C-alpha cells in the first residue's frame, strides 16, 4: 500500500480516494479530490495557486529546505526485511517528526514576528502621514516650534555619552 501525493496540492491520497488521470504518453497524474482535478483540467499552474503546497514553499510561507525532509522518500528499491531495522526506523520516524514540527513552528514564529514588525512600521508611517486627521494642524505647528530645541539637547547628550564610551 502506498500513500501517494496529489499532483496539484501535494496532500496525501489514501487508498480509495481521489482520481488518476493517465495521459496518452503514459504519465500518471494523481489527484486527491475533484477540486484538484478540475484545477488541473483548467491548466492552472500549482506554483501560482496560493492554496497549494508548491506555492507556499516557493513563497517562503513554509519551511522549504531542511534535512528532516530528506528522510521520507519514494524508494524504488525494496529493502531486505530486517526486524531490527524496522524497529529502529519506527523509532526514528517519531523523533524526526518531532524535530521537523519544532523547526516548522520556529519558521512560522519568525515569519509572524517579521510580519508584525512590518505592520508596525506601516502603521507608524500612516500615522505620520495622516496625523492631520486626528490633530489640528495649528497645534502641530505649535509643537514643532518647541521640538527642535529639545532634540538638539538630546543629540548633544548622546554625543557626550558616545565620547565617554570611546574613552
Amino acid at each position, binding site marked *: 500500500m502506498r500513500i501517494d501525493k496529489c499532483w496539484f496540492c501535494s496532500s496525501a491520497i489514501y487508498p480509495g480516494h481521489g482520481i488518476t488521470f493517465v*495521459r*496518452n504518453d503514459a504519465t500518471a497524474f494523481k489527484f486527491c479530490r475533484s477540486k484538484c482535478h478540475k484545477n488541473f483540467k483548467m491548466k492552472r499552474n*500549482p506554483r501560482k495557486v496560493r492554496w497549494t503546497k*508548491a506555492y507556499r514553499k516557493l513563497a517562503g510561507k513554509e519551511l522549504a529546505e531542511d534535512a528532516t525532509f530528506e528522510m521520507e*522518500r519514494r*524508494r524504488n528499491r525494496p529493502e531486505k526485511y530486517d526486524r531490527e531495522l524496522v524497529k529502529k526506523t519506527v523509532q526514528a520516524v517519531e523523533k524526526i517528526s518531532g524535530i521537523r514540527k519544532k523547526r516548522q513552528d520556529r519558521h512560522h514564529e519568525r515569519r509572524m514576528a517579521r510580519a508584525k514588525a512590518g505592520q508596525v512600521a506601516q502603521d507608524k508611517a500612516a500615522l505620520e502621514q495622516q496625523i492631520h486627521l486626528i490633530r489640528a494642524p495649528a497645534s502641530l505647528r505649535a509643537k514643532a516650534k518647541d521640538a527642535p530645541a529639545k532634540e538638539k539637547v538630546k543629540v548633544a547628550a548622546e554625543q557626550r555619552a558616545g565620547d565617554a564610551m570611546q574613552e
Partner: protein
Amino acid sequence: MGNAPGKRRVGGNSKTKKWHKQGVRKKFEARHIDQVWEDVRKPPQLVHSNKAGPQGTTSVAEHDEEVPGLGQHYCIPCSRYFSNAGALATHEKTKPHRRRAKLLLASDRPHNQVDAEVASGMGRPDNGPRLRSAGGVADMAE
C-alpha cells in the same frame, strides 16, 4: 410554448454551452506545457517527423487528411499545424509565437509529480545504486 408555471428555464443556450465545452476540451487535449517544454529542448526531428505527429504520444500517430497541410508544417513551441510553409513562416513572425518560444526556453521545468512530492515534505526519489552500466534498464531516475 413557454415553461410550465413555476418552472424556470435553466442551462442557458445549448448552442453556446456546446461551443464552450468543445473549446475547453480542445485546449486540454492539445499538448500540455510540460510536453512542449521538453519538445523545445529536443532536436526537432525527435519531436516531429513529416510522417507522424508529436512523438511520444498516441494522439496523432500518423498524419491523415484531417491534419492541416497533411502535417508537413508544424510549429513546435505552439504545437500547431499549418497548411503551408508560408503560413508557418508568417506565424513564426507573430508576437504570440515569439513570446511563447522565448518564455519556454527561459522558464524552469514545469510542475511535475516529483515537485509535488518535494513540496509535501518528501525527498527526491531514491533509486539506489545503479545495478547495470549506464544506458542499462536500471536507469530509472526521472
